[in-house]
């Protein structure tokens, strides 16, 4: 399947990498752990970003990322090359996180009520650069972490990862209206969190 690109200079590289990735997928499906390691390296950043943003918990995100790859290996046969491997993997990651959340909700019952505690934990990847654009990014990442879990999930899946309302409803088992309500709530909360004047005023 040819990319939809507009003939930009990077296309050759992308095609070559594509071929390479396809090879890694085939090899992995035949049980080649080396090839799977290469695939892991290729995708771990994206899977981890998703897990981290959805859980707002660095340790849990690492555990779940591991889990995603172990499961991908176990279930490799169910990937039949219908879509890109990255999309399949990402979908698997969403399922792993959602499943974990359900399990945790059942056992823990009460969810994290301490957004400030989470906020105190430094930005993803450690020392935050306090200059220019990166700061704005980190502020947003940080604000996302303070969201209530349902709202965070909706925002991360819809506004960052580009899934649609219906797809999210299907993945989470929630009604589409609920997903939308959570998304709107997330956006309202984020705007408030990112507005410096209001932040100074109170809460």
């Amino acid at each position, binding site marked *: 399947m040819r990319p939809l690109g507009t003939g930009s200079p990077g296309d050759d590289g992308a095609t070559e990498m594509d071929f390479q990735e396809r090879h890694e997928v085939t090899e992995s499906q035949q049980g080649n752990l080396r090839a799977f390691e290469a695939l892991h390296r290729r995708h771990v950043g994206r899977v981890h970003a998703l897990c981290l943003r959805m859980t707002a918990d660095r340790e849990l995100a690492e555990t779940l990322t591991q889990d995603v790859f172990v499961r991908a290996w176990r279930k490799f046969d169910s990937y039949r090359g219908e879509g890109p491997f990255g999309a399949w993997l990402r979908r698997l990651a969403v399922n792993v996180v959602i499943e974990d959340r359900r399990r945790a909700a059942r056992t823990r019952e009460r969810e994290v009520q301490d957004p400030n505690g989470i906020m105190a934990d430094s930005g993803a990847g450690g020392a935050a650069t306090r200059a220019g654009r990166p700061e704005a990014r980190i502020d947003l990442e940080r604000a996302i972490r303070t969201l209530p879990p349902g709202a965070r999930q909706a925002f991360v899946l819809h*506004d960052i990862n*580009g899934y649609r309302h219906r797809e999210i409803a299907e993945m989470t088992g929630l009604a589409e209206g609920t997903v939308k309500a959570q998304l709107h709530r997330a956006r309202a909360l984020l705007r408030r969190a990112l507005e410096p004047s209001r932040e100074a005023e109170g809460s």
Partner: protein
Amino acid sequence: MTHDQAQERLHDYVDGVLGVAEREALEAHLAGCAECRRELAALQELLVRAAGLPDEIPPARDLWPAIAAAIEDEAAARRERAAAPAGRPRGVLRRLFAPGGDRLAPALAAAAVLALVAVVVWRALVAPGPGDAPLRLAERTGPGETPAAVAAALATLEAECRAGDVQLAGLARRGGASPCLASVSASMGEVDQAIATARAAWRRHPDDPVLARRVLAAYKAKASLQKQAFSARCRV
């Protein structure tokens, strides 16, 4: 459309899920409502920032050793499971064929062995393991839009945005330096950055429909920002 209805629909508006009639009604309301316009601008700004977040965050430590260990443990456990039932038949066999043991006809013994072997092989190769269910969902990853449809939508948007950029430059040259225009051009820099980020990610994974949608979404944000700049209110 009432003000409250308009506020509610702004989300659907930026998400591009409003029908034509609703969208037009909302745009009519927006033309006369400064509060809704501010709300819309803030919403767009948030979405642009969200679209500009990095696609990858590498974990702080290398996760591969743990993953490889888990995979190998699992394989070992599976081998054991496969070996366990096979251990018993050997005992049975010994009894069957041992002098003075059970006097089963050799044919019957052979059939029993065959059945056992079949079960073991079936377990090892075919039987589902634990944790199958969640993947069903993953498998159902929708086909999404056809590449051609996405490419067409993108081409239209790109052309629209290019024309918009030219028009906007003209506006600036003619000295239309309203605060509104200034804030639009500030946001425009962010949108352009979001477009570049989304495009780069897409170039790396050209088959990923989610990334394609992100590029589209970034262009949509740009188009709607331009629209805002061209609105009568902004030119004053």
